[in-house]
C-alpha cells in the first residue's frame, strides 16, 4: 500500500469523524470502502496496513451524532475488519463488536428507522461472517432474530441484502459443519470443544431459520403479500445456494407450507412460488420423496383455475428444463393452447385433458388482457422448439403455420380472418407487442425441421409487414432480421418467384424512403447484412447470392444506398456507408475493375469526411476505406484507393471526433503492416543491440527506405505524428504505439545518411510546434534545415520547407517510450487512485469549513 496513503489516512478518519456531510460527493465513502476491501484482499491484514481504523470505528460507534451515511460506512468497515480472524479479535477486545452489531443500540438512538443504517448493519454482518469465531459471536448475540426480522423489510434493498446475508450465514454453518465432521478426529480437545460449540450454533441457527420459513411461507392475510413474495424469493435463493443435507432440511421444513400455499391460488405468488418449487426440484434425485411431492405441486399449479397463472406455471416449467417428460409435454400443450385457439390451426388434440382450460382461455381471449397471454405463449416457443420431437404436441411445421397466421391476423393491412377465436382479432390487430413476439418466435422457428416448405409463406407475410405503412419501426427491424435469418438457413431459394421478388423490392424501396429515420436505417442496415448471407441455390440450380434472388442484386441496392448517403439523419448516412462497404466488398476481393459508380462513391465519401457535420457518417467513411484496403489483395491494383489515402488519412486524423481519428489510425496501421510485412523479431522495437545499429544490410536498407517513402507518400507518417500529440488519450496512445512500431522497424536499420532522405511534411501548426520544441530541447536545431538542404540537392525535398521534418530523426527525438508509459496510465492515474480520493476528502473538508460558504453544497446537487 502507498505509504503516502497510510500517512494521511488518520487525518481522513478525523475528517469523517467530525462530519460526514462535508464529503466530496455521495460516492466517496463507497470508493473508500472499495479501497479498504482491495487492501484487505491483497495485503496481509487491513488493520496491519491501517491501524487507525479501530480507533475510528470505536469513536463512531459511541457517537450518535454522526450522519447516517458515516454510520452505515462504519458498520460495513467493521465487518470488513472483522472478516479476518485477527481483526475480529481486536474488535472483540475493544468491545466494539457487540456495540456496533447490537440493533438495540441503534434502536435506542432512534437510528434504526433509517434504511441506510440497516443496510450498513446487514452488509457489515455479511462481511464479518467468514469464520467460526464470527459465527459463534452471531449465535451468542442472537443476531439471527433481528436478521430474520429484516427478511421482509419494507425496503427492497434492505430485504434483499438481508436475504443474501442469511444465505451467507447458512453457507458458513454448512462449511464449518463439514470441517467439523472431517477434521475432528486428529484435533486436540480444545479444538473439539470449539467444534462442538460451532455445531450447536449451527443447529440452533438452522432450527430458527427453518421455523421462521415454515411460519412465514403461508399467506395469512392479503396485506402480507409483499412479505410472502420476499420470503419465497429468499427460499428460492437458499435452495439454489445451499447444498445437502441442509438443503433437504430446509425443504422438509417448508414442504407442508408450500403445499398449503399452492391451494390458495394467489396469482401474485405464482411466479415466486414456482421459482421455489423449481429451485427445490432441480437438485433432487427422481426417486426421493420430496421430489415426488414437488412434482405433484407442479401438477397442481398447472391445473389451477386462472389461465394466466397456468400459463406462467407452464412457462416456468419449460424454462427450467424439467426432467419429468409428462410435465414438460403438458406445459408445452398449455402454452400452445392460445395459439391453437386464436389461429384455429389444430396444434393440439381437442379431446385431451386440457378441455376445461381451453374454455377458460377462450373466454380470456375475448378480453383486452389476451395480449399478455398471447405474448407469454409466443415468447416461450423457443423453449418448445428445444424439446425432443416425440414430446412435442405437434410437428414444428404446424407451429410455424400458426405463427404465420397469427402474424397475418395482427397485420393491419391483412385481409386474413381467424378461423379460431374471432373476438381476439380486434385486440391483436396492429398490436406491435404481439407482432414483435410473433416475429421473435418466427426467428427461432427458422431452425425447425421441414420448414423449407413454408418459406414462401414466410416471405409473403414479411413482405406484407414491410409494405404496411402502419408497421412500427421496431416491427420493421424485426421483420428484416427474420428475412435474414430465414434466408440464411434455407439455402434453396428456388421458390422465390419473380412476382414475390417484385413485391419485396417494392416494399424495401418504400421503406427506404419512409418518413421515420428508424425505418430507413433498418432498411439500409438490412441491405448491408443481406450481402453477408451465404450463397444459395435458385430454381435454375445455380449457386447465387441471396441479394440477387431477393432484390435483383447490386444494381438495385447500390443506387438506393447512394441515395441514402444524402439522408438528413446521420445515423442513416452512416449505415448506408457501412452497407455500401459490405455490398462492394466482394468486388474488391475479386479485383474487379472499378465502375464509374464506385468512383462517384469515393468522391462522395471524401465529401462526407470533409463536410458531414456529424461523427457517425465520418466514422463510417473511414471504415469504408479500411474495409476496402483490407479486401484489396494488392493495393497497387487499386489506384483510386491509394490515391485517396493521403486525403483520408490527413482529414481523418484532424477530425473533431475521437473515433474518426482512432479509425484513421487503424487504417494507418494496416498500411504500416502492408508496407513492412512480417517484421522479424529483430525489428521489434523493444530492445536493440548496438550491433544491429552498426551493421545495416544495404539491400534491406533500400527496401525499407522505399517502403518508408511510400508510407510518407500515403500520409501515414504525418497522420501518426499528428495523432501522437492529440488531446484524446486513446488516439494519442494508438499513434504512439504505431510510431514505436515504425521506429522499431526503421531506425535500427537506417544509417544517418538514410535519415536525411525521407521527409515528412507536417500540416497543422501544433504538431509541428511540438516537434520543433522537442528538437530544440533535444539536440541541434539545425538538423532539419540542413537535412532539407542536403535532400534538396538530391532533388528529394523540393524546397526548404519549414513544415518538413526528417522521419527517422523525429522518431529518435520523440521520447515515445516515456509518452507511451504516460498514455498507458491514462487519467485513471488521478481518477481512480486511493491517494487522489483521500486528498479529495481532505480538501473538501477544508473547503467547507469557512463559515457562510455553501456554494460547494449546491455544487454537489447540481445536475450533470
Amino acid at each position, binding site marked *: 500500500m502507498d505509504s503516502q496513503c497510510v500517512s494521511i489516512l488518520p487525518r481522513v478518519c478525523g475528517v469523517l469523524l467530525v462530519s460526514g456531510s462535508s464529503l466530496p460527493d455521495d460516492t466517496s465513502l463507497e470508493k473508500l470502502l472499495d479501497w479498504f476491501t482491495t487492501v484487505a484482499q491483497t495485503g496481509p491484514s487491513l488493520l496491519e496496513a491501517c491501524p487507525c481504523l479501530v480507533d475510528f470505528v470505536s469513536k463512531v460507534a459511541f457517537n450518535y451524532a454522526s450522519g447516517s451515511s458515516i454510520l452505515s460506512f462504519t458498520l460495513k468497515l467493521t465487518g470488513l475488519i472483522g472478516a479476518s480472524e485477527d481483526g475480529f479479535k481486536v474488535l472483540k477486545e475493544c468491545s466494539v463488536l457487540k456495540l456496533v452489531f447490537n440493533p438495540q443500540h441503534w434502536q435506542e438512538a432512534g437510528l434504526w428507522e433509517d*434504511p441506510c443504517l440497516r443496510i450498513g448493519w446487514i452488509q457489515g454482518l455479511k462481511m464479518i461472517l467468514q469464520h467460526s469465531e464470527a459465527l459463534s459471536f452471531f449465535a451468542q448475540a442472537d443476531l439471527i432474530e433481528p436478521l430474520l426480522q429484516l427478511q421482509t423489510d419494507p425496503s427492497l434493498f434492505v430485504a434483499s441484502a438481508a436475504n443474501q446475508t442469511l444465505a451467507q450465514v447458512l453457507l458458513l454453518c454448512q462449511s464449518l459443519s463439514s470441517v467439523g465432521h472431517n477434521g475432528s478426529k486428529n484435533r486436540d480437545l480444545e479444538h473439539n470443544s470449539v467444534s462442538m460449540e460451532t455445531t450447536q450454533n449451527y443447529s440452533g441457527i438452522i432450527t430458527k431459520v427453518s421455523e421462521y420459513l415454515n411460519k412465514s411461507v403461508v399467506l395469512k392475510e392479503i396485506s402480507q403479500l409483499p412479505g410472502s413474495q420476499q420470503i419465497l424469493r429468499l427460499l428460492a435463493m437458499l435452495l439454489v445456494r445451499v447444498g445437502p443435507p441442509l438443503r433437504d432440511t430446509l425443504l422438509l421444513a417448508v414442504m407442508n407450507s408450500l403445499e398449503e400455499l399452492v391451494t390458495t391460488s394467489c396469482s401474485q405468488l405464482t411466479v415466486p412460488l414456482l421459482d421455489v418449487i423449481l429451485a427445490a426440484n432441480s437438485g433432487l434425485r427422481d426417486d426421493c420423496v420430496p421430489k415426488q411431492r414437488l412434482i405433484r405441486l407442479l401438477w397442481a399449479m398447472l391445473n389451477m383455475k386462472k389461465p394466466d397463472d397456468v400459463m406462467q406455471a407452464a412457462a416456468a416449467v419449460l424454462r427450467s428444463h424439467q426432467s419429468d417428460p409428462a410435465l414438460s409435454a403438458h406445459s408445452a400443450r398449455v402454452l400452445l393452447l392460445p395459439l391453437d385457439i386464436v389461429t384455429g390451426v389444430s396444434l393440439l388434440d381437442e379431446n385431451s385433458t386440457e378441455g376445461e382450460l381451453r374454455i377458460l382461455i377462450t373466454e380470456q381471449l375475448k378480453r383486452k388482457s389476451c395480449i399478455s397471454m398471447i405474448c407469454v405463449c409466443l415468447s416461450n416457443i423457443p423453449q418448445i422448439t428445444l424439446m425432443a420431437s416425440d414430446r412435442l404436441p405437434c410437428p414444428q411445421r404446424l407451429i410455424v403455420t400458426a405463427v404465420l397466421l397469427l402474424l397475418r391476423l395482427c397485420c393491419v393491412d391483412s385481409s386474413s380472418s381467424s378461423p379460431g377465436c374471432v373476438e381476439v382479432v380486434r385486440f391483436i390487430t396492429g398490436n406491435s407487442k404481439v407482432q414483435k413476439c410473433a416475429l421473435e418466435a418466427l426467428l427461432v422457428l427458422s431452425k425447425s425441421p421441414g420448414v423449407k416448405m413454408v418459406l414462401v409463406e414466410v416471405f409473403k407475410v414479411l413482405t406484407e409487414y414491410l409494405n404496411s405503412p402502419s408497421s412500427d419501426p421496431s416491427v420493421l427491424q424485426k421483420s428484416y432480421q427474420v428475412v435474414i435469418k430465414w434466408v440464411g438457413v434455407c439455402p434453396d431459394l428456388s421458390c422465390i418467384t419473380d412476382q414475390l421478388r417484385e413485391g419485396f423490392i417494392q416494399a424495401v424501396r418504400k421503406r427506404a424512403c419512409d418518413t421515420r429515420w428508424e425505418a430507413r436505417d433498418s432498411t439500409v442496415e438490412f441491405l448491408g447484412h443481406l450481402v453477408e448471407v451465404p450463397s444459395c441455390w435458385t430454381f435454375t440450380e445455380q449457386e447465387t447470392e441471396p441479394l440477387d434472388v431477393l432484390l435483383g442484386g447490386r444494381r438495385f441496392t447500390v443506387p438506393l444506398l447512394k441515395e441514402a448517403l444524402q439522408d438528413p439523419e446521420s445515423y442513416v448516412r452512416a449505415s448506408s456507408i457501412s452497407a455500401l462497404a459490405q455490398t462492394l466488398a466482394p468486388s474488391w476481393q475479386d479485383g474487379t475493375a472499378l465502375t464509374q459508380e464506385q468512383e462517384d462513391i469515393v468522391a462522395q465519401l471524401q465529401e462526407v469526411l470533409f463536410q458531414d457535420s456529424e461523427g457517425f457518417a465520418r466514422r463510417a467513411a473511414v471504415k469504408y476505406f479500411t474495409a476496402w484496403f483490407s479486401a484489396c489483395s494488392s493495393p497497387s491494383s487499386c489506384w483510386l484507393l491509394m490515391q485517396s489515402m493521403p486525403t483520408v488519412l490527413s482529414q481523418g486524423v484532424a477530425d473533431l471526433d475521437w*473515433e474518426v481519428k482512432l479509425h484513421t489510425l487503424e487504417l494507418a496501421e494496416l498500411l504500416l503492416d502492408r508496407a513492412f510485412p512480417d517484421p522479424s523479431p529483430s525489428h521489434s522495437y523493444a530492445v536493440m543491440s548496438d550491433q544491429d545499429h552498426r551493421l545495416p544490410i544495404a539491400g534491406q536498407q533500400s527496401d525499407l527506405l522505399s517502403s518508408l517513402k511510400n508510407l510518407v507518400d500515403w500520409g501515414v507518417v504525418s497522420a501518426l505524428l499528428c495523432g501522437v500529440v492529440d488531446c484524446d488519450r486513446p488516439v494519442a496512445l494508438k499513434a504512439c504505439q504505431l510510431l514505436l512500431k515504425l521506429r522499431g522497424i526503421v531506425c535500427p536499420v537506417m544509417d544517418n545518411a538514410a535519415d536525411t532522405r525521407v521527409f515528412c511534411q507536417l500540416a497543422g501548426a501544433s504538431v509541428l510546434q511540438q516537434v520543433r520544441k522537442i528538437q530544440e530541447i533535444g539536440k541541434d536545431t539545425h538538423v532539419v534545415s540542413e537535412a532539407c538542404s542536403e535532400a534538396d540537392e538530391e532533388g528529394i525535398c523540393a524546397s526548404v520547407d519549414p513544415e518538413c521534418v526528417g522521419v527517422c530523426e523525429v522518431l529518435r527525438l520523440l521520447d515515445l517510450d516515456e509518452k507511451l508509459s504516460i498514455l498507458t496510465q491514462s487519467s485513471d492515474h488521478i481518477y481512480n487512485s486511493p491517494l487522489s480520493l483521500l486528498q479529495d476528502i481532505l480538501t473538501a473538508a477544508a473547503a467547507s469549513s469557512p463559515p457562510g460558504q455553501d*456554494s460547494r453544497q449546491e455544487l454537489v446537487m447540481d445536475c450533470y
Partner: protein
Amino acid sequence: MPEIKVTPLGAGQDVGRSCILVSIGGKNIMLDCGMHMGYNDDRRFPDFSYITQNGRLTDFLDCVIISHFHLDHCGALPYMSEMVGYDGPIYMTHPTKAICPILLEDFRKITVDKKGETNFFTSQMIKDCMKKVIPLNLHQTVQVDDELEIKAYYAGHVLGAAMVHIKVGSESVVYTVSVNKFALCHSGAAWIDKCRPDILISESTYATTIRDSKRCRERDFLKKVHESIERGGKVLIPVFALGRAQELCILLETFWERMNLKAPIYFSTGLTEKANHYYKLFITWTNQKIRKTFVQRNMFEFKHIKAFDRSYADNPGPMVVFATPGMLHAGQSLQIFKKWAGNDKNMVIMPGYCVQGTIGHKILNGQRKLEMEGRSTLDVKLQVEYMSFSAHADAKGIMQLIRMAEPRNMLLVHGEAAKMEFLKGKIEQEFNCYMPANGETVALTTNPSVPVDISLNLLKREMTLGGPLPDPKKPRTMHGTLIMKENSLKLVSSEQALKELGLNEHQLRFTCRVQLQDPHSDSDTLHRIYTHLKSVLKDYTIQHLPDGTVMVESIVIKVSSSAEDANAKVLLLSWSYQDEDLGSYLSSLLKKGLPT
C-alpha cells in the same frame, strides 16, 4: 382496494441516478433510467434485478418514460434495452430523443478513455436503443395500450424536458423533473391541466432555497469573464457538448456585441454544430427570451464565436474558450487547462457538476497542486470559479406546480434527505407528502370512481316521482339494478334488468310472527286488528278478506291461537320486499298489542 405503488430504485432521498417504478392500475411503468457518473462499475446503473430476477424486463414493464436528456435520467437506457434486454416501448419528447444520443456518445467517450472499461454500451447499441424510442408531442395523449395513456407537458428545465401525466382508468400520476419558472413563461396557464392526479412525483433538488434569479447569475458570469479579459487573461469554460454550453454562448455573444469586445471566443467541440442544429430545430421548446430574440436574428449563428484549433491555445492575448469535456478529466479542456493553469491572470469557470476524482472536482475544492500523469505536478495559479446555471426547481416553483395540478398526494424524489424533509413539512400543511428512500415502496390506496351508465327509463321514472332534475353537482340516491354487460356497468330498472339478462322474476316475501294476549276468538281478534289498523293507517288500502285475512297493501295478516292457551294469539305477517318498510312498521305496531 386498488392502490398505486411507487418505488425509487434511484433518486430516493438522493441526487444520483433517477429510476422510479410506478405500479398503477395493474400497469408497471419506469420513470427515467439514469446513470450515476461517479462510479466505474455496475453501481453506475440501476440494479434491475430488483424488478425481476430472470432479466425479462419486457414481461414486467409496460413502458419506460424519460423526462429529459440529462444522463442521470437517461444514461442507463442503452444498457437496459440492449444489454439487459428490455424490448418494450420507451417514450420521450422529440428534442430529448434527438439530444439523448449526443450525450450518451459523449459519456461513452469519457468511459472508454478510462483503462479497463468493460460492460459498457457501444455506439451501435445507442442507435438501436434510440430506434425503440417513441417520440412524444406536447399535450398529445398517447395510448400505450388499451388502458394506459400518457400525456406530456412542457417542463422547461432543459430543452425538451417534460412532465408526464400517466393515467390508467380513473387513477393517475404526474411525474415531473425540476420545473422552473420558464415553464410558466412558456405557455402560461396551459402549463399543466388541473388534472388532480392521485400522486404528483416531483424532483426537489433545490427544495430549501428560493434561488437568486438566473439573471443575477448571468450578470455575475459576464462580469467575471469581462474582468479576466480586461486584464489580458484567458478564460476556459469546460462544458458538456450540449445544454448549458449553448446558453452561455448566447450570453457571451450578446454581451460581446453590446460591449463591442474584440477578444476572440472559441468553441472547441465537434458536437456543437449538431447541438446548435437541434436548438434551432426545436426552437419552440426553448425559453421565451430565446424564442423572441430568434425572431429578430438567429441566435445560434454566432458572429463572435469561432471554431477552435488546438494551436490557438498558445496565442498571446486574451480569449475565451469553451472546451469539452466538462469535468476537466481528459481531452481538449484538460489540455488547455494544463497550458493555462500556471498564469494567475487566467480563469476557469466550471458551470456544472464534477465527479469525484476529476481535475474539475479537485480544483473546485481548492486543490492548488495537482499530481498529473507521469508523476509531474501542476501548480494551479489561475482563478477557479463555479457558476451554476442549472435550471432546477426551487421550493416556490414546486408549490406553484402543486397548486396548479391539485394532486391528492405528493411524493418527492431527486433531492437530499434533509432538504426534502424541509419541503415535505411545507407541503404537508396542505397535502399528504412522501419521500421514500431508495428501495422503499410507497403504497397509496386509491378510490377510483367507476363510471356507470343509467337507463333513460329509470331517470324518467325518478323524475315522475317528483324529485329534482338530475344535477351533476348534487349527488342523490337512486334505486335500480346494477348490471355488468360487455365490461361496462349500467343502472337500470329491475324489469329492464330481467329483460336484458333473460331472467325470470322471483317473488321474495318476508314473514314474521307476533305473539299477543287477546281473550277473544280468532275472528274477533282479526276484526279488532282491522279496526285498529284502519284508525292508524288512514291513507292505506286495508281489506278484511273473507278467507280470514287482513291485507294492508301487500301485507297479509292471519291469526291463530296457541293450542295450550286460547288467549295467546299468534299473528302471522307476510309482505313482499317492496313493502318492507310498511311490513316492519306493522310488526312493531302489533307487538305493542291492540287497544282495549
